[in-house]
């Protein structure tokens, strides 16, 4: 495969990862927002005294954002950067 095709393949791989992670974040966040909008009783329910489902899920959305970013950084640092570095000399 020549360098141009390899870059093209890497380009689509990068956007696939980016788009899928964005979609995942959106699903998690808008899932939460839709619950806020349409299922207030569920979010008000208590898991244990003092902790409602809403507060728990809210904190988990923040954690999910961290996890998605961690996945992306791992992929980009280990996989993407190496390939770009290798391609740099050949373009």
């Amino acid at each position: 495969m020549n360098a141009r095709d390899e870059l093209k393949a890497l380009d689509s791989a990068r956007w696939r990862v980016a788009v899928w992670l964005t979609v995942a974040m959106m699903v998690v966040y808008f899932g939460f927002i839709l619950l806020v909008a349409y299922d207030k009783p569920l979010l008000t329910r208590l898991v244990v005294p003092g902790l409602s489902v809403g507060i728990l899920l809210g904190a988990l959305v923040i954690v999910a954002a961290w996890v998605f970013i961690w996945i992306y950084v791992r992929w980009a640092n280990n996989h993407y950067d190496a390939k770009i570095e290798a391609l740099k000399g050949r373009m």
Partner: protein
Amino acid sequence: MTIAFFFIFIVFSLGITYVAARRTRNAEHFYTAGGQVTGLQNGLALAGDYMSAASFLGIAGLVSLSGFDGLIYSIGFLVGWPVVMFLIAEPLRNLGRYTFSDVVAFRLRQTPVRVAAAIGSLAVVAFYLIAQMVGAGNLIHLLFGLRYEYAVAIVGVVMLAYVLFGGMMATTWVQIIKAVLLLAGAFLLATITLAKFGFNPLALFRAASARYGDAVLGPGRLVSNPFDAMSLGLALMLGTAGLPHILMRFYTVPNARTARTSVSYATAFIGFFYLLTFILGFGAMVLVGQPEIRAMDAGGNMAAPLLAQAVGGEAFLGFISAVAFATILAVVAGLTLAGAAALSHDLWVNVVRHGAASEVEQLRVARGSTVLLGALAIGLGIAFKGQNVAYMVGLAFAIAASANFPALVLSIFWRKFTTRAAQMSMLAGTFSSLLLIYLSPTIQIDILKNTSAWFPLRNPGLVSIPLSFLVAIVVSSMWPEPEAEARFAEVQQKVHFS
């Protein structure tokens, strides 16, 4: 006593800022030098630029008055960062030089794109500034007992002076120091608060629900209309990726990898801070009390300072107020500079002088625009008295998400995107969101005292963001631009190389 502490901490924080800024001035300026700002530093600077009065005063206030509903802002302000990370940060770094409009204009015609981007950026900056003025005005009103209107005017003038005479110092270091101060201050306040509940957040939440009912732990009246919740959610998530002063930060790092690292740090810090707002908000609700918070300011913006007073006395109030004030000062400096750059660089030089303006003239126009922006912010800051500052910043996010985000994303991703589409989508996004804000209950009912509002939603995002995308797609399809399409291959390649 409080006031003495307030001034001591203000002088102290401005002092370290000054020393740090002087030390780095020798080592050439960050913006052009590049390669000097590390991932951690830029992460802190991003966090510093991002965590404004809205994050500290506004969210703590909303949570203290509305419980869970306020947390929607904490969460919404954070989830924009993954979007920035996955879609924007690295292409932005590799395609542009100074501002995000470099990226939008990369394969399009420069002038129309830059003008539209400048108009959108100015609208965002204006609303962001109003929110900071409301926050700072309340703070000074609380500390010195001045009337709110005078407080806003005085704060506005002080901040203008700071930006005009110290403008160049308002660079990365101000934001870094301010971010550290804010994180440390909020952490200290949350720790002291939690100590009263045996370091168990659940005990705090239990105390809140014992006093105000279980309803405070779930969604309530703040988002009574489901569409309001979705509109706010959409604006908060996509707005971060359209904030001009945040996007500018990606040009201070040497390469895409550092841009990536800095977003990870920023997200870690900001997320941690927003988790603290859970504690601060509920802490103020229980330890200060809702009637007391509301009595000081209808928007609840003084919840965090009042909490500091309740748990740590006058000295601690002085400290936390100083941290909040320094926060606002830093954000205002960054915003005003971004706004002045848009006015003088993009509008004046490109449109009025057709690219021929001397350095001296540009500087004069930049100073003039700063004064103009400051005066506007003071006037509107007074008009928006009693509004929560997190809500106000939510409006700035809606404008950013409608004006800048669609054009930015489409210019990176979509081969068929055209100059005219970029221009029309940015203008449509800016003006539709401004119009809908004007027709919303906040302006029509709360401020103009009308009995009804034309537009039912308090945040325009649900309408204006899709509209902006739609305009971009329709205009691109109706008037193709083969030159721009031909240059897309260049974008695809350059996106990957620093």
